């Protein structure tokens, strides 16, 4: 419903003010990250830097480059594997019937809502015993497994929209289980893959609990490195702020360019949305 007149104009003004309020933390982050350490003080926190100083970014980059690399390997690897598995699961669960199918889906989806603290100790021990503890392959495995519920759910609801008659027609033409997937389902899966990959990449890139408990320092993703840096009080604030910008950049770029798909993933994740 579009309002005209006074209501519309006042909504416009109010929305502008609120947008400024929402952007204030971003302003503070960028401004502080561009100041020289000597110029940062609590009293002048809101002021623009007298001259732009890139030292925060230079130091943050030197410090965080290995962690950013870890995050990219982790997020891309786990996103692709969990998306492919989710796509196959979604295909099976939306197009094939088998005993117990009704109860399988809620049991799978339950896995995405559990507090991971309730599996953390056995998971930690499992990783130690299998030698997967500490490295990126182990962390990728963990993100793939706990990513399966959401990827399966998203693909399943997308594939529900594909008419069964199309599958029957392909069957009659002689296509088997994988033939139908390869030549009918996959070519229609572009948008769902985009939605799922954007969602998974964002979640895994931003994740902290598994990252901080299951990796050694050399394999730590950016979130752990940033939390450790900001937790130490001795550093000057331009460094954690520049680090925050670096950590936020990949998901920000995705959000700005492909926000539409991000919102679709977010709505589908709410089950009823």
């Amino acid at each position, binding site marked *: *419903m*579009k309002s005209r007149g006074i*209501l*519309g*104009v006042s909504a*416009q003004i109010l929305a502008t003010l*609120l*947008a400024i309020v*929402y952007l204030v*933390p971003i302003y*503070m982050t960028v401004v502080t990250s561009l100041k020289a350490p000597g110029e940062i003080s*609590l*009293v002048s*926190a809101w002021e623009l830097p007298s001259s732009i100083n890139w030292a925060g970014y230079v130091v943050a980059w030197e410090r965080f480059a290995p962690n950013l690399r870890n995050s990219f390997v982790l997020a891309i690897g786990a996103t692709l594997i969990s998306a492919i598995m989710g796509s*196959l*699961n979604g295909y*099976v669960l939306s197009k*094939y019937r088998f005993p117990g199918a*009704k109860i399988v*889906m*809620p049991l799978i*989806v*339950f896995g995405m809502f*559990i*507090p*991971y*603290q*309730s*599996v*953390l*100790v*056995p998971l930690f021990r*499992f990783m*130690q*015993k299998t030698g997967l503890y500490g490295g990126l392959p182990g962390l990728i495995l963990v993100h793939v*497994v706990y990513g*399966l519920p959401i990827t399966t759910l998203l693909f399943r609801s997308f594939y529900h929209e594909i008419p069964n008659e199309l599958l029957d027609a392909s069957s009659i033409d002689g296509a*088997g*289980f*994988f033939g139908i997937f390869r030549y009918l389902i996959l070519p229609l899966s572009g948008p769902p893959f985009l939605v799922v990959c954007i969602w998974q990449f964002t979640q895994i890139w*931003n994740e*902290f*609990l598994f990252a901080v408990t299951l990796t050694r320092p050399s394999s730590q993703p950016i979130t752990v490195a*940033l*939390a450790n840096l*900001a*937790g130490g009080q001795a550093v000057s*604030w331009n460094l954690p*702020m520049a680090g925050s910008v670096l*950590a936020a950049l990949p*998901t*920000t770029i995705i959000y700005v360019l492909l*926000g539409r798909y*991000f*919102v679709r993933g*977010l*709505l589908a994740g*709410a*089950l009823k*949305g």
Partner: protein
Amino acid sequence: MRSRREQLMAALTILPSIALLGIFVYGFIGNSIHMSTTDWGQEAAMSLTPNIQSVGMDNYRDLFTGFLNVRFRQDLVNMFFFTLLFVGLSLLIGLFLATLIDQLIWGETFFRTVFLYPMSLSMVVTGTIWRWILQPRGGINILPTLIGLPPGEFLWLSSRTQTLVFDWSHIFHYICLILLIAVAVSTYGQWRRRENKNLARKLVLCAVLMGIFLSGILTRIGLLNFPEAHGFNEALWGVVLAAVWQMSGYTMALYLAGLRTIPHELREAARVDGGSEFQIYRYVDLPLLKPITASAIVILGHIALKIFDLIFAIAGPDHYPTSMPAITMFLKTFRGNELAVGSGIGVILFLIVSLLIVPYLVVSFREE
């Protein structure tokens, strides 16, 4: 009709996923429950073949009543207030933003993008940023000085002030009171809508809860034999502020999607009947948004109950006033090597979150 061979291929395709989730979700939860009833910890924690004894429910008893676990009990209280404030404010602000955006003449995409942007950030980034903005003598507190007012004095994250203080010994008494309020509100709503289904049963439940509360039976079942004060830590306001900044855009997106699915004919019909714009909003739009509110409460609620990363980054894991069960679970397990106690806290979190999630999943999947 698909052939038997294809059915088999389908089953084999999802088998790995089912097996992985079976082990990593249900197997591990079962293992956590089992381990939480042992004395697994300290030197046994490091050994690959630990010598552990069963101790029954001792770890749980200790968490809820033990003298040394006072922090965990304050964690639970913090979690309760944080969840209440975070979910409540995110819903209100999200609904307000969605309604506002629905009225805009131009720039809808721009404003939606701005309000939802924080949700694409890591809670660690949000925490780091807000740790700086909420500095006691900087950030938000010196904003008033920019227009010549005295600076704010509120200690957003470091305040040690506690309000709404109650005695933990009487926790059952207060739980009973909260239940009473919840049941009474829902009963009243039902009575006003003149739905008589289960009304009598609910009234009886209200009366029973009221009776227990007034007679003070539960007060005499003291959980501890010493008084222990817990309450609302004002330092949580800083965490709530950062969390609402991050997640209110999410509720906005949900509500906006909901407003867009309301058929125009419905509003037109109300307009023809002489309804004002506000009346249409109040009596047509809002009731249709109720299912979305339910979804949002569940999603935001489970995020709030297990909150960890935001607390870790905004105040650090060792800051008592803003600590949560998930933080103490981390410290007990990975710093204190008390693996059994850590598992126990994990199981407690699991049970609390399940109370919220299981009914939601049952309703969602029954509808299919």
